[in-house]
């Protein structure tokens, strides 16, 4: 089963990369852009076809490794 995990910084955490990128975009002439935040995506495959189990496993992966829950939150999507 294919899945995608999206990890983003908690809104309370300031995001230096996002800020720098926003600055660059502005200096490239994209004045209208704001609130740029950078995050990560992980595409992965899990064996078996038990959707519920897959979801549970992937949540566990996020808690254990993929996300640093001190500063990040995550979302799991399982591809149809």
């Amino acid at each position, binding site marked *: 089963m294919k899945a995608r995990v999206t990890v983003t910084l908690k809104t*309370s955490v300031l995001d*230096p*990369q996002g800020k*720098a990128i926003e600055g660059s975009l502005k200096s490239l002439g994209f004045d209208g852009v704001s609130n740029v935040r950078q995050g990560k995506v992980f595409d992965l495959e899990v064996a078996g076809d038990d959707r519920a189990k897959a979801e549970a496993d992937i949540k566990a992966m996020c808690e*254990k*490794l*993929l996300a*640093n829950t*001190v*500063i990040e939150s995550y979302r799991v999507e399982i591809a149809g």
Partner: protein
Amino acid sequence: MKASVILFPGSNRERDAARALKHASGQDASIVWHGETSLPAGTDVVVLPGGFSYGDYLRCGAIAARSPVMDAVRAHAERGGLVLGICNGFQILVESGLLPGALLRNNHLKFVCRMQHLKVERAGTPFTNGYTDGQVIEVAVAHGDGNYLADVETLERIEGDGRVAFRYCDAEGNVGQASPNGSVNCIAGIYSERFNVLGLMPHPENFIDPLVGGTDGAGLFASLAKAAA
């Protein structure tokens, strides 16, 4: 002093750390593979060295923090044993929960290697009894992710308990504009609640010899040797 330097895949300052430990104590440190599940018997001090464990992939220190040996390190810390994390070692300590907070990308987004003054915020710990309160030392930083951050409550607790070990400062000891990475309150290193775990971004281990940039880092290792003696 019996010191164990943990070797993770991608660690690259383990020799530098071992050299500083030997310089201070006269004893060879043992290099311990990350796959081990226990520390050499009689280990006084555990050092998590600088480097790019697992290539800094995912998050700096994240993968190393989940390797087998870290359970042994955690147990050592719970017994009150001394643990020193330098640079990537500091990142591993926060990722493993042994120290609070997180280390984000430098605010200027570039790796920075340069000489840096530090203010010794608290002398008299097992790591700093070789220094005096407020002493300004000069060592180097060399990192891309040293931007320390913690939520407000945590930060208040750390500051309140006097658990900030070192702050970035200028030659006169002024804290403020001197941070090379944007870390909150110019924090360069912090202690655990019991002051037996220290994590810091700068590299004292490279400053033990007048020929190579000075000896301002030697005090930290001398302190450890004394504490462990």
